[in-house]
């Protein structure tokens, strides 16, 4: 089986040559295990060329002056992944029944399930963390001028993601179905109703009828679990694709290097 040539990795990531005197070139069990792992990865890579995509994603060039502000986007993604994972675990216990099952299932998760309180807290506080990071990331993008040509579409996708994040917060707030959840949702849906002409119809769409009824909680649950996360995942994919394709910008205080002959002479 001909071995593919090693990919051009940056120097720190190349496998270091074996130290002289260690094992004398003999293949011990550790080397066998490493070779087995490498051949599995090679097998997949030969059939998918994923290493090319991974190299494009991870070893792309970034401008001089890239600083810690640029990590806010990845931080937001990490917060979203936290919400998704903790949300999946909560969904294993949650029952969207307005006649008592919802509140009781959340009480069960919080009190009786091993680490249930931890997972629920991660989800609840993760929501706040995600909103804060989203706004910080949006602010960073705005103040660094990273929304200008050719990145306008990326900004638009980001705004849609912001609206979807707010919608996730709104729909998720109802699910514990305690007093605060119920009345906050009542107020929120009624705020929608104050818009002229279309407001009452929007409120009816959210309620699933003229007032809070048997299907309202299920509706909010479906929107929170299925519709909006699907849209968010698709748009995050588009957002990341555009970021890697277009590259990131340098901070606004970074001066471009010009050739000596082209610089204006100092008077």
């Amino acid at each position, binding site marked *: 089986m001909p071995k593919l040539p090693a990919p051009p990795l940056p120097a720190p990531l190349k496998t270091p040559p074996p130290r002289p005197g260690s094992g004398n070139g003999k293949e011990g069990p550790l080397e066998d295990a490493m070779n087995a792992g490498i051949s599995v990865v090679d097998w997949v890579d030969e059939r998918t060329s994923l290493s090319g995509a991974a190299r494009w994603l991870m070893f792309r060039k970034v401008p001089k002056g890239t600083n810690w502000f640029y990590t806010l986007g990845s931080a937001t993604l990490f917060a979203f992944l936290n919400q998704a994972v903790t949300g999946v675990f909560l969904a294993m216990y949650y029952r969207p029944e*307005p006649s008592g099952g919802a509140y009781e299932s959340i009480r069960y998760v919080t009190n009786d399930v091993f680490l249930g309180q931890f997972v629920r807290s991660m989800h609840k506080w993760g929501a706040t963390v995600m909103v804060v990071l989203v706004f910080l990331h949006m602010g960073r993008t705005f103040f660094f001028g990273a929304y200008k040509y050719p990145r306008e579409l990326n900004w638009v996708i980001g705004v849609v993601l912001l609206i979807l994040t707010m919608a996730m917060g709104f729909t998720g707030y109802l699910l514990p179905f305690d007093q605060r959840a119920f*009345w906050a949702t009542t*107020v929120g*849906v009624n705020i929608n109703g104050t818009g002229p002409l279309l407001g009452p119809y929007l409120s009816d769409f959210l309620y*699933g009828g003229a*007032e809070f009824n*048997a299907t309202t909680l299920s509706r909010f649950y479906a929107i929170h679990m299925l519709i909006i996360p699907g849209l968010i995942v698709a748009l995050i994919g588009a957002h990341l694709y555009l970021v890697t394709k277009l590259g990131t910008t340098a901070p606004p205080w970074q001066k471009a290097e010009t050739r000596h002959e082209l610089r204006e002479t100092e008077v």
Partner: protein
Amino acid sequence: MADRRSKQTSKYTLDRGMPGAFEGETITRRRFMTGTAHGAGAVAAAAFTLPALGFALGPIFKSTPHRWEVVGTVDEFPDNNYVPVVLTLTPGIGNAGKTTAYVRKFNPAIDTDPYDKGTPYIAISDRCAHLGCPVRWVDASERFVCPCHGGVYDLLGRRVSGPPVRPLDRFYSRVTGENVELGPRFSVNSLLRRFSPRLPGEPLDGIGQYLYPSTPGAKKL
């Protein structure tokens, strides 16, 4: 310009110079196949999109039937103070479908509005007309007070202070034998004229009743 109009393309593919055209053919086979495939795709997509749309938007148009509910006997309600009663707006979902109403017997000295004539009992909804928080009747000051944003209503449910845009909603009432029954909810404007039930936050004075229509789900009264 005159050239383009006079040089009209014939409807026969043979005349248009399509390769492989038959005598009398008006549409190429490629175009026919493409159009048919697109049509079948549209039918398949509609087969799952339209029911989903109907499922999402259908409840807006469904209207619940009017219900009359017994809330007490005729001697439980005074005519100068409000007694809270619990109503079931939506059956089957436990406490989330219940709401509170403040009931008082009709008092001709207080209820002087011509629109109120003939109502045996005045039943005021506890949902604030600002954004829907439940209001509390304070007997000492004869006011309804909303805890959320400080809306205050007087004895007749009319707005006295705060952000609400119209008076508190009311329920129809009737007496059946010894029992007082409450019926559907209706909204009032600041003159206490009656309208089909609206959501909180929707004013009904002047242009408000046209700007904020009652939706198909809320049955017209």
